[in-house]
């Protein structure tokens, strides 16, 4: 067992961080909105802030344990951290930065030079060796910062939004490079992000954090299929309606908070609070409601229409808000509806996914995925494609 196990509490401004997280070897993406406490978590793990109580274990080593009064200082934790702004040492050149940790460990000049050169070679940045860090590009700085961290042989890597500060043109390249380097390393890596593209690109384990708690863990695919919260649904681009399941004329229906009624596969759902999710590309739009349709429908006003390459994203606001995505040809066929026009959104009952949710406030139980859709795999690929195209 070489992974990270942590369970900790920390008072973080307006809310409490209350976390139970394990990071196995390999990349885990820590996803969450700004202010969810992601950076605070990294600082707690690194020993730069002190949890109120809890434990942090890295493999066999206990880094922090309130019960046993263990609190290793950062320099003894063997954790590598990539700060959002990288924090390269401006008084040293590239080699000096990478060799910094080795020098502290008392490595001789020759040994240091050897390890630095190996790293420069391995990370394909050998030409930068003698350069001043002030003259590096954003991507190069990123690579040097990672090299500096890796030089000391960390047992856990923490990366705080590694591509956020880069300009979009450089982002793709750095992401590919990071994925390659990190995959080879096989050490537990926690990569913080608030970028759906990044999460989709890495295709790794994802842990979603909201207001100081881990609300969902799983693959991108699982997030898409069963978003545990409205944030996750918005993040992956899926419609999310909260409401409740009730019995009406002896059959179950879903009544949204906005007051609309929808049908869905109810086989594994109990009455009570629930949420309904439906993919934007499974929603069809009409000017007139098709006759004799048994399907779910909602009338609403076009709120906004966004062009994404050859697709159009329409936000429809009626009793509830729904986002529909259609091809630009379909959009033209509809007569290019503009904001303010009224349309019908229609989707099949079996395209909707529904599950019970805990009453608001108690985030204890893990969300379970209750309905399955046969077309899920296909949908995932479509979304990922559209995400990449959208970039």
């Amino acid at each position: 067992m070489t992974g990270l196990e942590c369970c900790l509490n920390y008072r973080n401004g307006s809310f409490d961080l209350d976390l139970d997280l394990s990071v196995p070897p390999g990349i885990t993406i820590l996803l969450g909105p700004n202010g969810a406490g992601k950076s605070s978590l990294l600082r707690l793990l690194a020993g730069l802030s002190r949890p109120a109580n809890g434990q942090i274990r890295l493999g066999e080593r206990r880094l922090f344990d309130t019960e046993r009064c263990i609190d290793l200082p950062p320099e003894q934790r063997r954790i590598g951290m990539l700060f959002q702004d990288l924090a390269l040492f401006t008084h040293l050149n590239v080699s000096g930065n990478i060799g910094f940790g080795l020098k502290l460990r008392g490595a001789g000049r020759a040994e240091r030079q050897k390890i630095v050169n190996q790293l420069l070679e391995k990370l394909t940045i050998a030409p930068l060796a003698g350069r001043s860090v002030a003259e590096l590009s954003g991507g190069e700085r990123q690579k040097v910062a990672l090299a500096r961290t890796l030089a000391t042989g960390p047992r856990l890597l923490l990366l705080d939004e590694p591509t956020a500060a880069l300009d979009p043109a450089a982002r793709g390249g750095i992401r590919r490079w990071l994925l390659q380097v990190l995959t080879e390393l096989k050490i537990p890596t926690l990569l913080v992000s608030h970028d759906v593209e990044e999460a989709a690109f890495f295709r790794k384990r994802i842990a979603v954090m909201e207001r100081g708690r881990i609300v969902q863990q799983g693959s991108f695919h699982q997030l898409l299929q069963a978003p545990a919260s409205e944030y996750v649904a918005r993040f992956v681009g899926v419609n999310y309606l909260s409401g409740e399941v009730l019995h009406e004329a002896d059959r179950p229906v879903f009544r949204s908070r906005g007051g609309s009624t929808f049908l869905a596969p109810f086989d594994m759902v109990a009455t009570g609070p629930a949420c309904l999710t439906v993919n934007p590309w499974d929603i069809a739009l009409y000017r007139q409601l098709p006759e004799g349709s048994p399907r779910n429908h909602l009338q609403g006003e076009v709120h906004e229409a966004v062009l994404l390459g050859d697709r159009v994203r329409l936000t429809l606001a009626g009793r509830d808000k729904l986002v529909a995505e259609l091809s630009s040809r379909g959009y033209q066929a509809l007569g290019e509806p503009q904001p303010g026009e009224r349309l019908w959104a229609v989707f099949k009952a079996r395209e909707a996914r529904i599950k019970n949710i805990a009453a608001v406030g108690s985030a204890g139980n893990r969300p379970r995925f209750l309905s399955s859709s046969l077309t899920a795999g296909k949908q995932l690929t479509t979304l990922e494609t559209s995400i990449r195209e959208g970039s």
Partner: protein
Amino acid sequence: MNRLHPFTILLASCGLTLGMLLLLPIFALLLAVSPAELLNQLTKTEVLLALWITLLSSLLALLPTLLLGLPAAYGLSRCRGRLRHSLEILLELPMVLPPVVAGLALLLAFGRRGLLGGLLAEFGVRIPFTLAAVVIAILFVVSPYFVRRCASLFDGVDRKLEEAARLLGATPWQSFRRVALPVVRRGLFAEAIMALAQGFGLFGAIILFAGNLPGRTQTLSLALYSAFQSDPRQAFALGTLLLLISLLLLSTARLLRPWEARS
């Protein structure tokens, strides 16, 4: 924007008037002594002795200023909130003390009848009216400024840099020694020079605490004061000498500053 606004004219004339007021005496001083006269005066033994005492005492005071002041400044810059505020007020106290009062206070602390005088006398140590007194007087007046300015230098060091160093395996001492110090090194050098310059010109605290003993505690400023009463020409020469030393130190400090900003 070519039009000269009356307010701009007001600003310029205020600046000019003040500039004249400040620069005129300096010019006057430079004009008072011819270079030959200056050289002639400066080869006199008592002048050379005063110069030697000035340099020696300032350099001796610089050592504890750096050794105690740097860690203190670093510690101060790591304090936050109310603690920092209180410590800064404490530091300002000796700054607002008139130098003559500072000399008096030092005498009351280390003098024969002072707080520590009895204790020191038991060990056979007598501080007032010695070179040690000159050094202590300089340390007392200069170090608060030094600590304060260095603390703001350290404030400018990104905390992330030191956190990164810690995660790379640096102990707190190593992160101070290998990151914070090198990052502000030019600024520190400039501050050290400023501290020297400040020590060179000190008068009030020294004359009360260390006296005006030629060859023992008489620095250039004190020699100037004595000379003014007997031989004004020598006083002018000493004044010019002090001015030139200050100019030299100032330009060295200034030369270092812009590099700091660039890196």
